[in-house]
Each structure stands twice: as C-alpha cells, then as structure tokens.
C-alpha cells in the first residue's frame, strides 16, 4: 500500500481515540452521543470490545448488523445507568480542569444569556457510571476555568459532595479534535494524555483556558490498523460523515 492510500484524517484519529474509551470495558452499554463517538463505539464493538452493547438510538439494543437483541426504553435505560453497566460519552458545551461539564445554559442560571439543553441525564450519569466527553471543536470557550452550570459532576465537586457522590464516579477521558485528555494526576486535574498527529502542544495550550498537566512523555494518538481503517471507511461510515464533524 502506498503512503497516500493510508493517510489518516484528523476525524479518523478522533474515531480511534473515542473507540479506545471502550477498550476492556467488558459487557456494558456503550452510549455514544454525537457522530464521531458513535463511529468509535461501533468500531470498538467490531474489533477489540466485542461484548459491548449498542442501541439503535431509540429503544432497542442492536447487534452489529442492526438487528434487535434486546429492549431498552428510557425507563430501563435509566436503570442501566444507575446499575453502572454503561459507559457514556457525552458532549460538553463547557468543561473545566476537574471535569465539571455544562450542557445546561451559558451565563447566570437565573437568567441565562444562552439557554442550552438543560442538565438532561448528566448528574445521574456522572455519579453512577463512567462518563467520557467528546468536544469536536477544542477552544477556550469550551475548556474554561469554571463552568457556568455544573451538569456533569467533576472530581472536585464529587469529592466535596461526599462518599455517595464519589463511590461510582469516574471520568475516563475527554477526546477533542486536538487530543486525548484524562484526569490521571494526584489532584485529578486534567492532563494531556496524547496529541493527535499533526497537533502541537502550543496549539492545545492556546485553545485551553486553564493550565493542563502534561504526561511525562507527551504521546501521540495511536495509528489505526489497516483493518480499522477499512471498517471505518467501508463499513461503519462509508459516506464520510465523520469528516463534517471535525475540520482537518
């Protein structure tokens, strides 16, 4: 194969980084929100995490061919959340250094400058099952020092709320168009885990409104295997919708 034939796009690195969130998760529900996380979850299901459960986006659990294997209406989905057998990747309008996330509103809650969705299931998700985040456009507007409305609970907020908040709380990773971030630091502050190939440390620093910890040896997001590229390009997302969510 020639080099040009396997040139990997930024969106494809993002897919790989999202898929990796569900590695070694076992038999749990992968709940991806957004297109790139969906492609990532399905890639993980097709390759290294075959026991993952996936939904059709409505009330059915479906196999890799899209055929139903189970029923998961909202009321049972909420029980799956609290039972913990789930790893969700949510969006974030704002996220801070300790992983507090906001999808509710921008500005003062009492009279928001911009009303967004509301807290949705972010509070119950973050206290009960692993919650990762996906940010398609990494900027200082999203990676903020302090979120306006804590919807998803971060490490500092969970610790302040006590043992029943921290008991099942975990934020495995944040994936953006620039890199992968985690909270593997002594104080659970956000750390740069890997840069996507082509991205510089300065680029990430300029797009983040707080100081990021950096892993001892700043790594790069891994390359997809040829089989993974084939699955992404020919099976899971043949229309290339991923390229619309992330600008190269």
């Amino acid at each position, binding site marked *: 194969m020639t080099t040009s034939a396997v040139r990997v796009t930024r969106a494809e690195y993002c897919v790989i980084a999202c898929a990796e969130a569900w590695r070694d998760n076992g038999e749990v529900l992968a709940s991806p929100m957004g297109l790139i996380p969906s492609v990532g979850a399905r890639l993980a299901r097709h390759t290294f995490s075959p026991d993952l459960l996936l939904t059709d986006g409505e009330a059915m659990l479906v196999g890799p061919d899209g055929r139903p294997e189970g029923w998961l209406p*909202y009321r049972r989905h909420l029980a799956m959340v609290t039972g913990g057998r789930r790893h969700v990747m949510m969006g974030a309008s704002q996220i801070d250094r300790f992983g507090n996330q906001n999808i509710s509103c921008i500005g003062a809650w009492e009279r*928001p400058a911009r*009303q967004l969705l509301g807290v949705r299931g*972010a509070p119950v998700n973050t*206290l009960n099952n692993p919650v990762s985040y996906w940010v398609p456009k990494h900027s200082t507007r999203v990676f903020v020092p302090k979120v306006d*409305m804590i*919807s998803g609970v971060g490490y500092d907020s969970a610790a302040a*709320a006590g043992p*029943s908040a921290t008991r*099942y709380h975990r934020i495995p990773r944040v994936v953006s168009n620039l890199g992968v971030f985690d909270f593997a630091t002594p104080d659970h502050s956000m750390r740069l885990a890997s840069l996507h190939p082509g991205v510089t440390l300065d680029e990430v620093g300029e797009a983040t409104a707080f100081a990021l910890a950096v892993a001892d040896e700043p790594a790069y997001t891994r390359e997809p295997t040829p089989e993974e590229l084939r699955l992404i390009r020919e099976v899971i997302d043949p229309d290339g919708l991923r390229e619309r969510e992330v600008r190269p």
Partner: protein
Amino acid sequence: MTDKTMTPEDVVARLSSGMTLGIGGWGSRRKPMALVRALLRSPVTDLTVISYGGPDVGLLAAAGRVRKLVAPFATLDSIPLEPHFRAARQGGAFELVEVDEAMFMWGLHAAANRLPFLPVRAGIGSDVMRVNPDLRTVTSPYEDGETFVAMPALRMDAALVHLNRADRLGNGQYLGPDPYFDDLFCEAADSAYLSCERIVDAFGDDGGSGPGGVVPQSLLVGRYAVTGVVECPNGAHFTSCVPDYGRDEAFQKLYATTPWAEFAERFLSGPDEKSYQSAVQSWHEEQK
C-alpha cells in the same frame, strides 16, 4: 361501565388556571399535542408544567401560559434546542425547577406511590442542588450511611398523555418501541386525560399473539388512572407517534424557524383541532 370519551374542549373545560399539569411523552415524541393546542385555545394560564420537555413546553411558553416549569430538558430531538423554551428562559418568562432525568423519574414514582420523596444518587455534586435550594438530602439508616437526594414527589392536578389506542373506559395501549412514562404521569395525577389515535372496541386488532390476540405488555395505562378519553387522529402531530406516524420533520422545522406570532396566526388561531390539521395539510400541499 362508564364511557369516558370526551372532546379536547371537554378536557380543557376541566382544567383551570394555576393548576399543576403533567405532560407525557418525551422531547418531540408522542406528546399530547392536540390537547396542548386545545389548552392554547382556552384562557387557562398560570400553569406549573411537569414534562420531559419538547414542543409542548415550547408552545405553552410562547403563549405565556407557564408560571413554573419542572423539567430536566426541553428539546425537539432532531433540532437539539427548543427555540421558544430558550427565548422564554432568556427572557426570564417563568420559574424553572431544573432536575436530572432520573430525579424526574423518581419524582413521578414517588407521586404514583403516594410517597413524599424517593432517594436517588443523582443531583448531589451538581448545580442542580445550587439552583434548587429547597431540595433536601436523606441519609441511609443502614450501615452504608450514604447520602442521597430526597427527590420530592411530582404530584400533579392533571396529566395529559397521548397513546396509539384506547378503549372508551380509559385503558390505553402503546404500539411503538417506548412507553416513555405515560403510565406514571396518569398515576401521579388527580385526574388524567388520555388522547389516542383511535378508540377501539377491543384491543388486538393491531396484531399480537398474546392472550386474546393482544400483546399484554402493550396495555400501558389502566382505566383506574384515567378520567377522560379523547379520540384525536394525528393528535401527537408534529411529534412522533410510531408506528402510526413518524415526526413531521419539515413542519417541526417550520415551527422552530417561524416567528411565533406568524406561526400562531396561521396554525393555532382556528376554532378547533380540525382547523389546525387542515392548515397543516394546506402547508404541506404548498411545499410540493
């Protein structure tokens, strides 16, 4: 046996200003839109609305009928942000009780079970506690000693839901993939009004292989929890009501992008539901 059939106007005549009103469905899915439209034709206002919010919330907010909203979100699903809910919030038009989706569900369960609250591991650590200073926590009396949110019962004066089929006694059937929480809404309310696509003499005509030719699990709402039944074909429009019909995406987009006065004038100023449905039909004809 009591025949509970009534018209949308009959339902609204039983509602009054200042009531706490639960609305079934979820987002832009199987909302009792015909009953909401009937409400808009009435003078009933100053409502406390309890809803997994969709265009039901948007319509009532745009028309200035909401004093207080209890909700975890408001969305049109395919259009993430509900424009009239947004405008109302940004204009400070009503009081909001913003809770998590699971907190909301346990609030419905508490109300249906006549309990003052139920414990839930959601809310603490988040700003749901900051913006709802009345929320209290409860500590487990057992060895774990854990602390939870004591989600108060979401008791309501009246509930409005829409299902695929119902009989004249108030038994209701859903035929789509998700019951949402409509049974809980009915049980959490002092009176509940069920609109449906079609009133049937007996269930089972839509297929099914269970006892009596009906899938028993599809019989979601029991007549003991229903006050009135309304036959409203297309009564969830423009939200989805599968398998009878999907969401009317084109019309929802129109709703989301048309200035409220213009939209209300063209589609909501008629004397009844029939005039709404024919205005929608004319609009679709124009698009061809």
